[in-house]
């Protein structure tokens, strides 16, 4: 071990003397700092804007004057996806997933907005975030710094010299890996500081933040082992560099995209337009509220009349129009839920396929783990959409209950002709303030850490494999 340390110290001195390594490290440090500072500022700004918008939506809803409840069904409200503190480290899908959903009766609206729709085409080149720096930039920096560390010495005849002086091949390899690992640790500092800073703002996020830090270090360990291995096996420094740059391009750039492209092809998602049309079509077959003779609604009416022992809806002890609205909402929402589950199922299948591709490229495992930990992955977004739909349904049905029980049927029927009946059909404003506001906590810290496990597992597998390959080979 002491011998390995001596090798490492000597190698670090060489790194310090190499202008290329120092310049690259300084440049990377600057980029990391920019990414960390802008990442924190941006996440702060976005989270603040969403909080403000959510509060404004609730305030506007609660401030509505006396109204007919069905007006409120159409007035609706908004759900905004909150952004957790760790998004400063990895904003994940935030830019590409709509962040605002308009919640109203009869309809399940699409999520809207998102940075991807308001940026130049450069957004397709990648977002400079601390997670991006660690996943994409740092490994290539390590390649540039470390590719020649063994093969260069061999070409100069120095390896045999050191071995023959009793360093020992494994200690030699270990020392080199240790030195490169020190560089990796140094390069990771700004990103990890950003992570720590983000986690410090909410102690509940400490667990996932720690898991993200671990997975970052594991990811860089893979590169340290891989670079040491290639540098030990390559015939020339040039071929080591080419092999490593190629490996980086394939693992970090190519495979994640190819996996995403394949997933999109194998599990095609229907368009939102087509889903909406299918829902309309299915709805007409279940019960067409526009058709006065529709069998479903006729049966619904007959059931109510029988249950209350009356022959006309006017004799029901409540407002039939409200009950009809609630029944219509129940039917449409059933279909919304079924189709949303289908869509989520397809997207999760796509995500699983990409996850399997992580066996071929641990970059995918790292990306999925860090997004899951930061609650900025697909799962968190789907959970938000589901929470928004649940809130929509509860809000609308609570308004429909007011319509059924707080608006007299005679007033309701006469309100478009008779201004006085219209006045009487309004419900007191205090009911709007009683509606529960939309809240979304996101997945719990332990769920997030659990969601990171597959990615962590794949990285661990890679690290173990590379360590075995590295230390079991013999000197060339």
């Amino acid at each position, binding site marked *: 071990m002491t011998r390995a340390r001596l090798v490492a110290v000597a190698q670090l001195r060489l790194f310090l003397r190499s202008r*290329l390594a120092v310049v*690259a490290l300084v440049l990377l440090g600057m980029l990391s700092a*920019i990414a960390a500072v*802008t990442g924190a500022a941006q996440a702060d700004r976005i989270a603040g*804007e969403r909080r403000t*918008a959510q509060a*404004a939506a609730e305030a*506007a809803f609660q401030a509505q004057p006396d109204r007919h409840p069905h007006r409120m069904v*159409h007035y*609706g409200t*908004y759900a905004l996806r909150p952004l957790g503190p760790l998004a400063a480290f990895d904003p994940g*899908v935030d830019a*590409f*997933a709509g962040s*605002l959903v308009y919640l109203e009766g009869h309809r399940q609206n*699409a*999520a*809207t*907005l*998102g*940075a*991807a*729709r*308001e*940026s*130049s*085409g*450069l957004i*397709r*080149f*990648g977002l*400079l975030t601390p997670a991006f720096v660690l996943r*994409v930039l740092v490994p290539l920096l390590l390649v540039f710094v470390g590719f020649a560390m063994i093969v260069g010495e061999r070409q100069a005849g120095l390896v045999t010299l050191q071995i023959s002086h009793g360093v020992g091949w494994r200690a030699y390899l270990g020392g080199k890996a240790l030195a490169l690992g020190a560089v990796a640790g140094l390069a990771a500092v700004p990103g990890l500081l950003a992570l720590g800073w983000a986690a410090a703002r909410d102690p509940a996020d400490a667990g996932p933040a720690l898991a993200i830090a671990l997975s970052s270090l594991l990811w860089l360990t893979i590169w340290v082992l891989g670079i040491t291995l290639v540098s030990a096996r390559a015939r*020339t*420094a*040039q071929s080591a*560099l080419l092999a490593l*740059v*190629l490996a980086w391009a394939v693992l970090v*750039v*190519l495979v*994640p*995209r*190819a996996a*995403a*492209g394949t997933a*999109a092809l194998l599990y*095609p*998602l229907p*368009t*939102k*337009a*087509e*889903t909406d049309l299918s829902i309309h*079509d299915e709805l007409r077959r279940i019960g067409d509220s526009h058709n006065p003779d529709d069998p479903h609604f006729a049966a619904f009416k007959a059931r109510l009349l029988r249950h209350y022992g009356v022959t006309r809806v006017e004799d029901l002890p409540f407002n039939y129009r409200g009950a009809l609205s609630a029944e219509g909402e129940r039917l449409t929402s059933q279909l919304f839920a079924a189709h949303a589950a289908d*869509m989520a199922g*397809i997207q999760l299948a*796509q*995500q699983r396929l990409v996850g399997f591709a992580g066996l071929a490229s641990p970059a995918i495992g790292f990306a999925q783990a860090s997004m899951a930990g930061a609650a900025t*992955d697909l799962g968190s977004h789907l959970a938000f959409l589901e929470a928004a739909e649940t809130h929509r349904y509860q809000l609308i049905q609570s308004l429909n209950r007011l319509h059924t029980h707080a608006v007299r049927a005679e007033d309701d029927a006469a309100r478009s002709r008779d201004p006085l009946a219209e006045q009487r059909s309004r419900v007191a404003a205090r009911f709007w303030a009683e509606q529960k506001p939309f809240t979304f906590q996101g997945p719990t810290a332990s769920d997030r850490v659990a969601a990171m496990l597959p990615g962590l597992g794949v990285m661990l597998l890679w690290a173990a494999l590379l360590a075995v390959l590295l230390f079991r080979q013999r000197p060339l």
Partner: protein
Amino acid sequence: MTRMLLREWRLLSGASRAALLGLACLAAVAVALGLAAVSATRADIARVVGLEAKETAAVEGFAQGAAGSFGYYRHYPVWRAPGDLGFLAPSRGDAVPEVQRIRMLALEAQINDNESANPELLLAGRFDFAFVLLYMAPLVLIALLHDLWSAEREAGRLGALQSLPHADRRLWTPRATLRFAGVALALLIPLVVGAAVEGTAPGRLIGAVGLVLASLAFWAALSLLVARSEAASATQAAILAGLWFAIALVIPAAAHLAINRAVPLPDAAELIRENREEVHAGWDRPKAETMQRFVARYPDFADRADVGTGFHWKWYFAFQHLGDLHVAAQSAARDAGIARREGLAQALGWALPPLKLTQALQGMAGSDVRAELAFRERVRAFHAEIRTYHYPFLFDDRPMTAAEVAAAPSFGAPPAS
């Protein structure tokens, strides 16, 4: 020349041949995926147009000719049909829908809807021809060209080779040409095959080929420039890979941050909320006031703007439109801000030729931000067409005949799938 090129091909190492073959495979897969994506998009559009026709027939069933009901319930599909070069950079699965349904209600509440895409796939980025051209091809070119001279120097042959008569013409030019041509063919053969499948217009195909060649020429020139230096082959490779890294990854990502910071946009959530507030305030505002503001815009209907105390569709659609007008300035400022951001990105392209050429290729494929903004403009114009088609029926209290329902504006002929 052919003889010299053949000789250079025989001298090419196995690894280099594998790299060329690998690149050709990547380009072929990218083109195949692109072709599948554009044909799936066309099929999506055709299906939605077909289903919408069924839906319209159902609306006809209960609307009984009432123009107001048509205005409220009837939706019109709008779409971005992929062009004949769409397969090079398809936009399927983008946040901006490729096919969308629009109705006569306030447009601001509709035009920002996202496609229900998988955001993780969007984040990963596209595997398309533009990607292969920008990221993969330069690496292969760099690998093939960076040590053109240094490899021979390090093998101790450079002096002898340079002393051959006409070494440039007989040796280096054919060698560099073969390697460049190999990379170019690896990309262009799949491109031309894809264009043949799509029936791309010859002029546009030539344009795309020109962009590909220009992009490769940039990297080849840069590689040869560095290869000419006296440095060791490993250093040359490191310099070129570093330049590639900066041009293709770091500078665009950093510029994205800077541009978004430099050009702030009006708050979209606020815009959407204000639009809704204005529309819903229409219910409570005196009807005469609403109609007065509306006919100020549409004076042709001034003599028919009277509404009684009850509900009337012309009043309903008047306040819907007033809601759009209320935020029109903010909305235009937002679109202008996005266009300005894209303009700055395009300006950056002049400093980074590979970026410019990729942007140009995405432009030709019709999947850049300018195409998205142009689509929004078309949707706005189409929405105005729908409104103005319905207004006379609403203001004249005239029912729509089946022929008039059928004669409503359409976004155009859907693409053949």
